[in-house]
């Protein structure tokens, strides 16, 4: 099994004719993802790659194709509207890849999506992949292999690094989810941990956090009180100075809060495995699956 996406995923690509959207739509098709529709206003009626129908609106696309998942590659100033359009059209899982969405937009998008009963992943995230079944977003398919480890992370390339090392060491993944590096995102660690806990395929979880906020501390508390499966955690940004935004909008230590040290302490207090460096995931997970 897997979480959030699998063979029943019917994917819609918002911004399918744009530079990023078309590139990754092709990659997803190549991976075998069931891409059923694309949306670009004004390009309704076209066919993408000769096989994916393009619509003017998400509502049209959902009505015509029954798409249940959407992935968003639109410029940051239009991303909030794209997420809300997908939610209003009844899409159940919305994955927003776009980086640079204003955080005040997210204060409206988050309740809107919730009111419509949808799950949002991202924004500013690499998306997710269930190796061998479906890829939604930009995680390179070839570094993944099916297996027992659930992966959840706030970052993109760091996830690839860890997944790559796991795959090289012969440890496969159930689903890899990048939840994104923004201060307000749709799905947090706990949502993913709960899903992994409930997923029969997943035997252990790798979790990559970073400085900023308290999501990792709350996740650790969730691991301690609600999870039976082992979780190994890592925190990026141990050497980051306070008050500076380390690339990700969410990766910032405010005053004395959000430091790597307090997050690692929370992991330890929860009895989690703690990876001091990405490579450590391999041995720590080998011992746990």
């Amino acid at each position, binding site marked *: 099994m897997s979480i959030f996406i699998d063979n029943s995923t019917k994917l819609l690509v918002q911004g399918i004719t744009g530079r990023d959207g078309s590139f990754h739509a092709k990659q997803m098709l190549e991976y075998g993802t069931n891409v059923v529709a694309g949306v670009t206003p004004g390009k309704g009626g076209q066919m993408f790659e000769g096989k994916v129908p393009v619509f003017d609106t998400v509502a049209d696309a959902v009505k015509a194709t029954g798409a249940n998942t959407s992935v968003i590659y639109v410029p940051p100033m239009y991303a909030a509207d794209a997420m809300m359009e997908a939610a209003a059209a009844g899409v159940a899982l919305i994955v927003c890849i776009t980086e640079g969405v204003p955080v005040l937009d997210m204060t409206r998008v988050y309740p809107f999506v919730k009111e419509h009963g949808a799950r949002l992943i991202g924004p500013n995230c690499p998306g997710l992949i269930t190796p061998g079944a479906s890829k939604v977003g930009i995680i390179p398919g070839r570094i993944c292999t099916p297996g027992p480890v659930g992966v959840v992370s706030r970052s993109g390339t760091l996830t690839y690094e860890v997944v790559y090392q796991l795959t090289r060491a012969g440890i496969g993944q159930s689903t890899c989810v990048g939840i994104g590096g923004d*201060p307000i995102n749709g799905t947090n660690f706990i949502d993913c941990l709960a899903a992994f806990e409930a997923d029969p395929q997943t035997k252990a979880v790798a979790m990559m956090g970073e400085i900023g906020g308290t999501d990792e501390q709350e996740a650790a508390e969730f691991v301690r009180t609600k999870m039976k499966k082992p979780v190994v955690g890592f925190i990026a940004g141990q050497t980051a100075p306070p008050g500076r935004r380390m*690339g990700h909008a969410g990766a910032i230590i405010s005053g004395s809060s959000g430091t790597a040290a307090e997050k690692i302490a929370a992991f330890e207090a929860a009895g989690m495995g703690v990876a001091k460096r990405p490579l450590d995931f391999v041995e720590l997970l080998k011992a746990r699956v």
Partner: protein
Amino acid sequence: MNLHEYQAKELLRAIGVPIPPGDIATTPDEAEAIATRLGTAVMVKAQVHAGGRGKAGGVKYCPTPAVAREKAQAILGMDIKGLTVEKVLVTTAADIASEAYVGIIVDRARKAPVFMVSAAGGIDIEEVAATTPEKIMYEAVDTRYGLLPFQAMQMGFFLYKDVKLARQAAAIMTQLYDAFMEAGCSLAEINPLVVTPTNELIAVDGKMVIDDNELDRKPSIAALRDESSEAPSEVDARNANLTFIKLDGNVGCCVNGAGLAMATMDLVKYYGGEPANFLDIGGSSNPEKVVNALRIITADPNVKAILFNIFGGITRTDDVANGIVTATKQSPLKVPIVIRLTGTNEEIAVKILQENGFSASSDMDEAVQRAVALAKGGAA
């Protein structure tokens, strides 16, 4: 993006917040002229993006224009936390009966702007939060509804028992919220909000931090950027679409992706080294970015070794390799370089590098260890 005090105050004044009159000076002459025009005792305040200006001597009370001139002379050109003071704000000194703090931040947990207000103003609010948390009221604003009148009044009454002052404070908080939303802030504060001896409220200091992601749709706010007040390397990096933060170590890092960039810095430290910077070239595959990145890294005289760590997903590693070759041809490196790359087009990249006399590793730990050793003057 940080606004200067005087810029934040202009925005607040425009929306109706009572702000003491004042103007900006870049020379002692100008400071004296402004003080003369104001006709009151003034404060001369360094305009610089650093906390603790006051303690550093960057804020002075000046009873006369002559003193204003003298203090401006002292403050202009002063170095505060590595930043040079280029401008001072000369503003009427307010009579102060009491000081309060009013601030808004975007709170991640509540996914909303949250007001923090306290009658214990004028000092560092984090200190108040740590020592006397009961003196702070928090009020989250649901941006779908905006700041509701009753919320503003609750905060007004938290600060002041007197209904007239409470109403005035509520009006100011509503204006602060409007300014916060209009400018696209991640933080806005008035500290102190002052009650004058005649029982009027006035905002004596203002601060606004803009969410960088808002700047594309807010050109008038983006135009407030003052590059003279930022580290030149960071300005350079931003103009090249790189995310760069200077640190104190000697291993220059160039990585794609913020999480991997932090993890790389951490690994440098793990193996006994010290990173010289955070640098994320982002997800695109543009050799030009690599050229700019190398220029910025090598401009730091502390850098004793350069470490590339590239995990090719969207980023094509051959583009990175071409960027390294181009840059080093333009200006040969004076320090050793260690290149780790893997992923998209890795074989082409390795070939390009080898043909140009570089070696490449595919292992992150190995590469970091070598870079640390080289920075310490050890063997490659």
